[in-house]
């Protein structure tokens, strides 16, 4: 178990800078999920911590020791790879026990530990098989077991579930969480699946183009996204954005479409007179008869989701989504009203894209990286 401190880390490949000014402290025993779109540098960050890539600038410390110049084997991290990276010519038992063998653990002890670890992930019956004779989920477990058996200080996961089918993915998610509660190693889990991130994380790290956009608990990030980028990325179905200007006198946001959306006083004052993007979560909105809501829109199309429906609307030429369990099915192009509850609006500065927090807020601003 160990704390991980990442200080001002940058990474360049040749002349391309792919990561810059990354600062992050991960507490002892914490489960942190790094979330971001493909190519944003999640794997790179993980590999920098593991020691599989060299750090260009800055430093990384594990348990208080700067590890920049340490080999992977000296860092005490275990890693679960996306493609599992099992040794194809070794049996499951040999795969799981390889680290112990390299470390020179006596055979008897090794076998006892292999058996115990394999049993703990439900692999007891497969010890003599080769990876090629296992299903995807079983391979995944071998990869986990191989990491667990080392009792690592730090557990690194690089999208370990992305090759599994949806059902197995959910199951393995719980299993990973269960294992974490048991062994309590500091864990970093990389994924681009926000459901996975939300379920697993003690804290989420949202990355974008090689920088950290926001760090916080899943709740914090969902409730108060720090930037337009995070707001658009977290939440499914995704948030809609409408531009407007805040009128402090009327305590309202005047949308470009002409609608006026009432704002809480503290927020209206904080954003007085500014051009903003208003973020609206589909699940906070509801449909009304035309002209009865704060926003007038037209129906573009309706997406059937089973229990609910996702209404894709157009406010003039901007899209707005509403998630509703009502069973209305308005015709395409029909006018419709949208009601926005007070406090459902997220305001972001139109220029910087940063979140505007209410003035004299009782709650501190979600700290950004």
């Amino acid at each position, binding site marked *: 178990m160990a704390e991980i401190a990442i200080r001002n880390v940058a990474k360049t490949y040749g002349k391309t800078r792919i990561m810059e000014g990354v600062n992050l402290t991960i507490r002892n025993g914490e489960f942190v999920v790094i979330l971001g779109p493909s190519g944003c540098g999640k794997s790179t960050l993980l590999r920098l911590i593991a020691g*599989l890539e060299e750090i260009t600038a800055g430093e990384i410390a594990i348990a208080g020791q700067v590890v920049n110049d340490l*080999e992977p*084997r000296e860092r005490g991290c275990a*890693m679960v790879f996306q*493609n599992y990276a099992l040794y194809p010519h070794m049996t499951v038992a040999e795969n799981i026990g390889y680290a112990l063998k*390299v470390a020179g653990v006596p055979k008897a002890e090794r076998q006892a530990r292999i058996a115990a670890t394999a049993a703990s992930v439900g692999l007891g019956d497969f010890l003599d098989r080769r990876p*090629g004779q296992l299903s995807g989920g079983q391979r995944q477990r071998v990869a986990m077991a191989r990491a667990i058996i080392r009792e690592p200080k730090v557990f690194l996961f690089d999208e370990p579930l992305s090759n599994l089918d949806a059902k197995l993915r959910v199951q393995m998610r719980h299993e990973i969480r269960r294992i974490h509660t048991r062994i309590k190693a500091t864990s970093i889990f990389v994924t681009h699946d926000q459901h996975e991130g939300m379920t697993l994380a003690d804290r989420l790290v949202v990355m974008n183009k090689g920088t950290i956009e926001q760090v916080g608990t899943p709740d914090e990030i969902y409730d108060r996204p720090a930037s337009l980028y995070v707001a658009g990325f977290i939440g499914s179905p995704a948030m809609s954005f409408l531009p407007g200007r805040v009128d402090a006198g009327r305590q309202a946001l005047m949308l470009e479409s002409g609608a006026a959306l009432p704002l809480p006083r503290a927020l209206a004052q904080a954003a007085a007179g500014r051009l903003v993007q208003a973020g609206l979560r589909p699940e906070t909105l509801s449909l009304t008869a035309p002209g009865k809501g704060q926003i007038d829109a037209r129906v573009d199309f309706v997406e059937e989701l089973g229990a609910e429906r996702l209404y894709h609307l157009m406010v003039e030429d901007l899209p707005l989504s509403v998630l509703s369990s009502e069973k209305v099915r308005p015709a395409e192009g029909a006018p419709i009203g949208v009601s926005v509850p007070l406090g459902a609006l997220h305001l972001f500065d139109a220029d910087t894209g940063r979140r505007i927090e209410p003035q004299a807020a009782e709650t501190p601003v979600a700290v950004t990286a």
Partner: protein
Amino acid sequence: MRRAHFKFSWIVPLLLAPQLLVIFTFFYWPSAQALYWAFTLEQPWGGGNTWVGFDNFRKVLSDPYYWGSVRVSVIYALATTILAMGMALTLALFVDRQLAGYRVWRIGIIWPYAVAAPAVGLAFQFVFNPGAGIFSYINTISPGWWDLSKHPWQAVTAIVIAGAWKQVSYSFIFFLAALQAIPRSLTEAAAMDGARPLRRMIDLQLPLLTPTFFFLLVINITDSFTDSFGIVDTLTGGGPFRATDLMVYKIYSDGFRGFDYSGAAAQSIILMCLVMALTFIQFRYIERRVHYT
């Protein structure tokens, strides 16, 4: 991949014809001739060949010189194979780790494969020449010590080195391809598991190379039996004292120098059977090798 099926048409035999013609002219026809010669004997004063059954084979197999030739061929095959594959593997491991200068290695190492055997022999003649070659320096220290034409073991060493040099490149390419086909994440996983580079080589890379290794073993041995003629002919001419009289070379010298067509033909058939056996082993056991997936 999906296969396209065509209806029979005149274009099929037409496309096959050139290749079939080449195979027929240079393989089936000579083989048939060899078979004919192997079981017949030309009458001393003309008048055609007479059928002699297995006489030619009996004569060849009871000839101590023939067994000498077999012995040196086996030594040559094993020695060149071990040397060539050892070198190839070492170089491939270096290139795979991309140690300093690997680009030069990579290009330089592929060339020998493009060089014809007699040219290899000629090139090594300059190396091994006791009077003027690189090895002649030894003779300035101890005059007369190095001389291919006097010392059998030196002659064998020389053709082994030349033969191995020629074969290194082929094995190298296969080893390198196999090494590069090992996913990088495997090596990384082993590194995370605490294995240093040497340990990773022993535990990971070498075992994963086994299929390639067996494939190359058979190919190299087969090649040493059949593709050594040019080297022997240019470098030692089979001597001294028949020390480098490899099976292919003996076929040539018995047939075209000694005019013993029937004996040479019998030897050809034996060599052909040997190569066929090796090929069979390859298909039967190596092609069905363990595939790691």
